[in-house]
């Protein structure tokens, strides 16, 4: 009995010691960093810099456009490194053209690799688009014809990117005003084919899903349900506007100049209800900048949508466990 009591006492002392050790600020930081928590951040834009620094406590991370720094002076890259030392940063590419049937240019991959090495972001991402072909620079992200050939070419480009940069990027679905001709696969089948053949994670742009769904006649919610939930790592939310077509009809343009509409928050809730891992949500805004309060309000709304989705996820899991037991 005495021995047991001594052992229990020793355990108690050890327990208190461990608890004290775990309560240090350093350990708390490590635990917080490693916790499987959803985060909501903002796309870094120079016009928003002052507001971002003023409200860093309400922004979990920043997404920086990598291409802006490929040819930047050294002092700007140093400033980015300083920023990355203060706030979690992720890099986002816009001009590699990963979904092109031609191999991604080595020079561009090298630029991305160099920046990754300098900034050491949490992850990097790029679009599933082609941006140049046959000597023509399109100037923006174009949707390639969705076929098994473009799935294979994209997977090949992704493996080249992984080898050159040292990490596989998250791939992002794009918005397109034109339904790409010669497509033999649905958008979800094409996307799933790429995820499957390259084993990469997905940066799911929910406004792009909404725009393509409305413009090309599919249900955005159904699209989200067709994506493997374990592959969704990050999410973009943004706003756009309807533009008139020559025939008088309207299509939704993903311009990032407007507030996030409610259907995007509904899609975010659905995604959070299905996703199995932690989600990183980024609010994108590229112009017509509103007040910082407005951006923070949209970040707060994203947090609420995430929380509602996660509650649904937990409820469904509890129901399943109950049903099995």
């Amino acid at each position, binding site marked *: 009995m005495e021995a047991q009591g001594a052992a229990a006492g020793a355990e108690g002392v050890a327990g208190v010691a461990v608890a004290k050790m775990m309560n240090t600020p350093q350990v708390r930081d490590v635990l917080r960093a490693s916790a499987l928590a959803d985060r909501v951040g903002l796309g870094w834009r120079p016009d928003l810099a002052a507001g971002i620094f003023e409200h860093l406590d309400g922004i979990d991370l920043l997404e920086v456009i990598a291409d802006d720094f490929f040819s930047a002076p050294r002092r700007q890259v140093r400033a980015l490194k300083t920023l990355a030392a203060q706030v979690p940063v992720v890099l986002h590419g816009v001009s590699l053209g990963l979904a092109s049937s031609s191999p991604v240019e080595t020079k561009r991959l090298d630029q991305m690799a160099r920046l990754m090495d300098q900034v050491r972001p949490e992850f990097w991402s790029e679009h599933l688009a082609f941006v140049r072909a046959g000597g023509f620079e*399109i100037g923006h992200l174009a949707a390639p014809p969705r076929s098994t050939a473009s799935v294979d070419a994209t997977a090949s480009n992704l493996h080249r990117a992984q080898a050159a940069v040292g990490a596989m990027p998250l791939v992002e679905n794009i918005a397109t005003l034109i339904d790409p001709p*010669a497509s033999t696969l649905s958008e979800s089948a094409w996307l799933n084919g790429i995820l499957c053949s390259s084993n990469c994670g997905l940066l799911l742009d929910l406004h792009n899903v909404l725009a393509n769904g409305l413009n090309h006649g599919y249900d955005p919610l159904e699209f989200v349900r067709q994506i493997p939930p374990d592959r969704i790592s990050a999410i973009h939310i943004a706003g756009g506007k309807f533009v008139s077509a*020559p025939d008088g009809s309207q299509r939704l343009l993903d311009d990032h100049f407007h507030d996030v509409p409610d259907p995007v928050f509904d899609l975010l809730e659905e995604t959070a209800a299905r996703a199995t891992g932690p989600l990183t949500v980024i609010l994108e805004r590229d112009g017509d900048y509103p007040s910082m309060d407005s951006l923070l309000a949209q970040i707060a709304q994203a947090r609420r949508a995430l929380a509602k989705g996660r509650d649904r996820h937990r409820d469904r899991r509890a129901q399943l466990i109950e049903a099995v037991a």
Partner: protein
Amino acid sequence: MNSSSSQLEAFLARLYVDPEARANFKANPRAEAQKAGLSEDHCIALENVDWIGLEMAARSFAKKRRLKRRPNWFDAFRSRFTRLHFFRFGQK
């Protein structure tokens, strides 16, 4: 690399950036696609292209290219000097 897919992408890229190529294609889609050496399947697909989407996408890309264009010396001069009060003399 699939050369047939590459040819199709090059053809689309040209349609997106070149209004004249787009007008020619609209006037005679099959002939233009065949002239570019595209496969029969791709020619058929292009005959049934989303015409409205093509025009809207091309306009959107053109706008993006304009926004990305770096200002030349004249733009820089104009933006710097129109800020001076002297150049706004007489304006309210």
